[in-house]
């Protein structure tokens, strides 16, 4: 299974329709692959829920925008994990021998400020109820995870700020990133508190953007002369009962009163399933793209993907191991800190970055000698998302 083409529309607040970003990204990826759109036999869209009916049927919306070509179509929604769910749909159809070349596209236009639930009174919708009954925003959940690092491991605001400084330095060189200025730790720590202990610059913004990948069977990849980057694993696992870590947007966890919790929690289990499928481990990674919805959450991911043990992430960061030039650079793209989140495009964008890194095409943010890269993310309501790619 090869990634034969990748492309993006730069992230920002462009105020355009999401379809335009998707078409731009798709054309860039097809161009990169040297594939004609008429030769794509399966298109998968990452669904966006904020753009009306066209967003609910993103796959066919993109197919129509590119010009109907008769391809099979699917649309995937898995919240922040939609992109990898779409990649998995394309990959499995190719692995089944039902398709040669597939295009995966995600694009979004997002509102300013907190991501809010859809309008209307919905007393049976947990995502609506957490706002109505508790006022628990997404940053409030990120802040509770950050607070646990502080109270349990002695992490501090300076550690969180260091993540932002690192990612800003990485993203400075990324033409697709929305924020490309260096950030000082004191700027992070002087920005207003949103949800204690997290400040405005600890939390990622929401952005417009589009990303696309072209996947191909080994035979088609050889024909295209694009055999450099392979998908080794895609993990879209759900939690195992009882899931005892409070996950966004839930008001309560499962109960472990009768059934003991699984040996590893949900987030580590996402990576574990991918490592098992790839026959690789954390020691094999050259780089990782992790979902830094907040600075502190990036540190949680270090532990969840096995770069270090629980409570050791701050040390790994402080040593410079996760900076470009270090032992295991994390978020060489600049991460969500520099992009802001464009939900259905983000997991696809992570795969674009790893592909450029493995090809040695990442320019000033290149991780030297990159051989294996991992992307990871978690979608609301129990969606794992992890892709491992190698040369």
């Amino acid at each position, binding site marked *: 299974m090869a990634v034969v083409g990748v492309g993006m529309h730069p992230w920002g607040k462009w105020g355009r329709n999401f379809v335009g970003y998707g078409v731009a990204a798709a054309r860039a990826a097809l161009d990169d692959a040297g594939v004609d759109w008429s030769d794509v036999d399966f298109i998968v869209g990452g669904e966006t829920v904020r753009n009306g009916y066209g967003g609910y049927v993103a796959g066919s919306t993109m197919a129509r925008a590119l010009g109907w070509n008769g391809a099979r179509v699917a649309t995937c929604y898995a919240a922040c994990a939609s992109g990898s769910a779409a990649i998995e749909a394309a990959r499995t159809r190719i692995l089944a021998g039902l398709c040669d070349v597939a295009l995966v596209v995600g694009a979004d236009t997002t509102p300013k*400020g*907190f991501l*809010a*639930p859809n*309008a209307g*009174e919905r*007393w*049976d919708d*947990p995502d*609506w*109820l*957490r*706002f*109505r*009954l*508790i*006022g*628990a*925003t997404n940053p*409030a959940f990120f*802040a*509770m*995870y950050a*607070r*646990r690092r502080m*109270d*349990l491991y002695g992490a501090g605001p300076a550690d969180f700020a260091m993540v932002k400084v690192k990612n800003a330095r990485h993203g400075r060189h990324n033409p697709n990133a929305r924020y490309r200025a260096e950030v000082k730790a004191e700027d992070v720590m002087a920005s*207003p*508190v*949103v*949800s*204690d*202990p*997290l400040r405005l610059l600890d939390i990622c913004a929401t952005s417009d953007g589009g990303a696309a990948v072209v996947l191909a069977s080994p035979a088609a990849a050889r024909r295209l002369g694009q055999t450099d980057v392979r998908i080794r694993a895609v993990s879209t696992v759900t939690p195992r*009962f*009882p899931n*005892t870590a*409070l996950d966004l947007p*839930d*008001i*309560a*966890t*499962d*109960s*472990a*009163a*009768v*059934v003991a919790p699984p040996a590893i929690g949900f987030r580590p289990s996402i990576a574990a399933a991918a490592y098992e499928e790839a026959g690789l481990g954390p020691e094999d990674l050259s780089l990782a793209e992790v979902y830094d919805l907040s600075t502190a959450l990036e540190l949680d991911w270090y532990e969840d993907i096995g770069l270090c043990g629980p409570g050791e992430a701050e040390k790994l960061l402080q040593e410079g191991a996760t900076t470009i030039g270090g032992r295991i650079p994390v978020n060489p793209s600049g991460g969500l800190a520099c992009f802001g989140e464009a939900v259905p495009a983000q997991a696809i964008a992570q795969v674009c970055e790893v592909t450029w890194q493995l090809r040695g095409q990442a320019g000033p943010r290149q991780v030297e000698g990159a051989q294996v890269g991992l992307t990871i993310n978690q979608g609301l309501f129990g969606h794992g998302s992890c892709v491992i790619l190698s040369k």
Partner: protein
Amino acid sequence: MTEPEPVIDRWFTTGPEPALIGRRCTKCGTYQFPPTGEWCPNPACDSMSMEDTELSRRGRVWSYTDAQYQPPAPFVPSTDAFEPFAIAAVELEAEAMVILGQVASGFGVGQLRVGTEVELVVEPIDASGALVWKWRPCSE
């Protein structure tokens, strides 16, 4: 004058010793909250029989934060001028689960740590006077 009513039906009791109402499987004993389950969430249990049960009134803070900015609708601020409030996720020992709630008015993140003991209270959710559950740090 009428007694204030809970903002949502059947999620908690009111009175001097209020409690959250959970569901408990009559076959395997697994708990669930919010109390909306009609079948058991334990994958090894096929029970379709869940009954209401009052959950522990005390627990320990799993984590906590606050809202320094007014959350978007459907959140309704309790006063015209938004005042920041704290939120706690609280671990109940017997039920072995974590339940989120606002922290009682008058308390902020400064009074909390991971592990702080808290108890359940009910307070008005907004100017309507309707009641919601909150977590209040225990005095001792």
